[in-house]
């Protein structure tokens, strides 16, 4: 059989490619509409040709699309649309049914000049199905989010970790330097935690940590930032909080934990915490010194008998 000529082969190729290809003239009337376009739009080439694209698809964004076409007619250069900014130009079903994340085909579009004798006779548009790429991109973003999370969170309790809270503390400190708005730091530590682990085992110890994390998170809510600071030690940052406020918060935390019984399969436990409070003030030259003050207060609470709140020396 004789090989068809180049023009015919090009026509055949146009009908086979896995790419939407269509073209419009200066009145935005459809002059070319390939098979991909008919199959996905439900409008066949015979019906589409001669109609204005805006007539054929009234839901298209008029001003935006007209601008895309005019860019090509007037500048003789290209125009683009990315799935990330506009998920699709035309609502098509995608051909990857396994990808559950998108209900419609995600599309990258390109608009280009078809030129004859230095004139742009038509604007050709390609619509590429990038649904799989979009799905992979979303997965990557989710993985990055999880990675970010795992570097900021303590795995056991789900609270923020030490690395994160120190960064937050530095941020609060800088904000205080700029605005003068005081904030407080609470450090609280489980009383006799080693005893809990030795007597009831580490699973019980873990359960205690999780329970305390949940109880205190509930208690402080949006008013502060809670983190696991050490093995059995926790830190709370309380923005816009003065010494009196920090003492009150510390007391609420102490009471919530002391009044709470922890029920495990074999045993019912109760634990208490000691709390140390410090508030930033003129003399607090650095974040480290502020944390040290809270730490000294915590130590004082322990020495004073445990299950109590102690204030940093400057506020006592």
């Amino acid at each position, binding site marked *: 059989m004789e090989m068809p000529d180049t023009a015919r082969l090009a026509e055949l190729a146009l009908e086979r490619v896995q790419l939407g290809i269509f073209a419009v003239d200066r009145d935005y009337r459809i002059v070319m509409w390939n098979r991909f376009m008919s199959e996905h739009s439900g409008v066949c080439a015979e019906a589409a040709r001669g109609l204005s694209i805006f007539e054929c698809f009234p839901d298209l964004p008029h001003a935006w699309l007209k601008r895309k076409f005019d860019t090509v007619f007037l500048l003789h250069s290209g*125009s683009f649309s990315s799935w990330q900014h506009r998920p699709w130009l035309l609502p098509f079903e995608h051909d990857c049914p396994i990808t559950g994340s998108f209900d419609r085909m995600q599309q990258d579009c390109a608009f280009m000049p078809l030129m004859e004798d230095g004139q742009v006779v038509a604007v050709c548009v390609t619509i590429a199905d990038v649904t799989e790429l979009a799905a992979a991109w979303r997965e990557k973003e989710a993985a990055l989010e999880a990675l970010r999370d795992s570097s900021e969170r303590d795995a056991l309790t789900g609270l923020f970790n030490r690395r994160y809270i120190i960064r937050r503390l530095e941020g609060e400190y800088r904000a205080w330097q700029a605005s003068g708005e005081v904030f407080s730091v609470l450090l609280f530590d489980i009383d006799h935690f080693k005893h809990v682990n030795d007597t009831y085992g580490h699973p019980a110890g873990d359960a205690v940590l999780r329970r305390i994390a949940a109880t205190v998170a509930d208690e402080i809510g949006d008013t502060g930032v809670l983190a696991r600071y050490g093995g059995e030690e926790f830190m709370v940052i309380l923005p816009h909080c003065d010494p009196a406020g920090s003492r009150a918060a510390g007391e609420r935390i102490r009471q919530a934990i002391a009044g709470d019984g922890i029920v495990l399969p074999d045993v019912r436990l109760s634990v208490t915490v000691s709390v140390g409070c410090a508030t930033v003030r003129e003399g607090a030259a650095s974040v480290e010194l502020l944390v040290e003050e809270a730490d000294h207060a915590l130590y004082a609470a322990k020495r004073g008998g445990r299950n109590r709140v102690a204030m940093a020396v400057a506020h006592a």
Partner: protein
Amino acid sequence: MSDAILSGDRRDALQEIANIGMGQAGARLAALLGRFIHLSVPRIRMVDTVSLPSAVRDMLDFTEPVTALRQSFRCDIAGEAISLFDSRGAAHMKFVFRADESELASPEEADEQDIEALSDVANLITGACLTGLFEQIGQVPTFTPPRVMGAHLDLEDILNPSKLPWDRALLLEVTLQTEDGVFGSHLLTLMTAKAVEALVTALDGFLANL
């Protein structure tokens, strides 16, 4: 110095081509936007990419940090076009280039962070200028979509030679004038040595036909 490659007649030819090209580009942009747009006679300099940040700083009137977008172009000459915007320029350009009249009432309303709008601006300016220029030597370049190279960074971070696998930069400083003032619009093109050779060949062809 790399300016030696483009000297004398060739340099004059390139300047003339760029002048005509920018004039063409300005007229086309004005027609597209339905607004007064004028592109200045471009300043042209050829530099090695190592000297790029300082050359850009010399030539252009920016307040860093800047946002940069890149697009590849290809005809007989292939390279990359980089558009640079500082925050004031970005907001103003988005206002000038807006597609829908109802969108924004003033440049102040243009959201500086709106990357889609900025990509559109970069594409229009790059497309108009480079197409205008290359058409003078009988070429119609094709372009890839704009991609953000970096947002709100210093010139050294964005134009770091390690990030630009190109040898030469043809700096085209184009100033865009609109009805409410003059706003610098900055176009750089980067080319390999091979592309520069192709440009030189094209310029020689242009000169021969004069």
